[in-house]
């Protein structure tokens, strides 16, 4: 009696972990990023992505993921821009169908958000958020970085990797 029960429990646990390992959906966790033609930042952009976009992970290489968007576009995204979609173990239970996955919760504007910043700013006039906003306006295009690397014999144009 005991033996089959033990085996079925073991198989059950293995199935759970296999399913977890096969959960190949990743979600963009940063404000904006691009899907690229090749696994490097200055390769051609083929789609723009924003926080919360779900992507199907196809393969990985040197910290980059090859993914497919909902629209079917295939390209590369750096692994630091996404989180692996949390698989809801008990989603099969009907009462939990509506529960947001941990990943979705993490992506919602919870915790320290714009509203908390506004409230903090109202009390702390000395904190210079206007200067921070100007700092965020400093944008460097990947092609400028590419030219910089090339001229300085850096990265793939020199001794780096």
């Amino acid at each position, binding site marked *: 009696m*005991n033996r089959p*029960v033990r085996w079925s*429990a073991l198989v*059950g*646990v293995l199935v*759970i972990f296999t399913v977890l390992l096969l959960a190949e959906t990743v979600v963009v*966790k*940063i404000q904006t990023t691009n899907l690229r033609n090749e696994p490097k*930042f200055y390769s051609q952009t083929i789609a723009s992505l924003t*926080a919360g976009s779900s992507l199907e992970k196809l393969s990985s290489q040197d910290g980059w993921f090859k993914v497919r968007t909902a629209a079917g576009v295939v390209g590369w995204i*750096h692994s*630091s*821009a996404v989180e692996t979609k*949390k*698989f*809801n*173990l*008990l989603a099969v239970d009907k009462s*939990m169908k509506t*529960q947001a*996955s*941990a*990943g979705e*919760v*993490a*992506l*919602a*504007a*919870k*915790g*320290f*958000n714009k*509203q*908390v*910043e506004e*409230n*903090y700013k109202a009390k702390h006039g*000395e*904190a*210079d*958020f206007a*200067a*921070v906003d*100007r*700092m965020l306006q*400093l944008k460097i295009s990947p092609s*400028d*970085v590419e030219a*910089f*690397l090339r*001229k*300085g*014999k*850096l*990265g793939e*144009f*020199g*001794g*780096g*990797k």
Partner: protein
Amino acid sequence: MKAPKYWLIAAVACVFGAGLTGCSVVQQGAKVLTDTGKLSEKDRDSIIKTSEALRSTFSEITEQEEYYIGRAVAALILSRYKVYDNGGMTNYVNVLGKAVSYSSDRPETYGGYHFLILDSDEVNALAAPGGFVFVTKGLVKQCKDEEMLASILAHEIGHVSAKHGLASIKKSRLVDAFKILGKEATTRYGPKELAELTGIFENVLGDIVESLVEKGYDRKYEYEADQLGVKFASRTGYDPNGLTRFLKTMVGGASGASGKGWFRTHPTAEDRIGKVDSSIRTMAMVPKTLPVRTERFAQSVKGLKP
């Protein structure tokens, strides 16, 4: 009679899986198992306790929260220092910093990496969570070539990448915050929750600013950032000896390096040089300093040199 044991195994597997799944899932799961009589209330409580403990570490802070914490820390840094207004030099530091960030372990952050030069003769560099990096005019002046500046930016990117700012937040703050946050995603808080969260936010910023600006990071974080700096700079193609050469200019508090952050506190430049040197010695291939970059550096910062 034996069956509950297997449910316990499954429940423990769920807790183990909390790294992969959400804690609220674990809690809901424990509740379901208890409701169906497959798990005792005592076991359920201990499982829920474990999953909550997993929530109260700094690594549970989301990318977006890190961004808002970083913005406020940067705003406080910018209330203490004036920005050095030089578009060309600022652009140079940003391209250089971005290039190094591409070869880091964390090239993408919620708001991206941004770099500013502070109008101060103090020799200092600071990085707020999420990628707001500052170097003083005094520090840029102290650099003799691009490798030195690249190594310092790589060290700061190391702090961001390893989330040292967030790690310096006292654990009690996060326990307080997670208590309020609960499990539901909310976009607007009511006045009471907002006041409480803002209070915690103030304390969180206090912890980080104390480490970053006043006392300096813990010794182990400085060493780790040096190691990461060596790694990121050399991956980009820079000679990582830029860091040792820079540190050597600071030995014994020479050149008025009584600044904050980088040099005021322990570890001393001498301690850091020893550790950096030995990690460079283990590298299979060490990139060389190239004159083309040294010339570019001299050209880019010439406004600072007398």
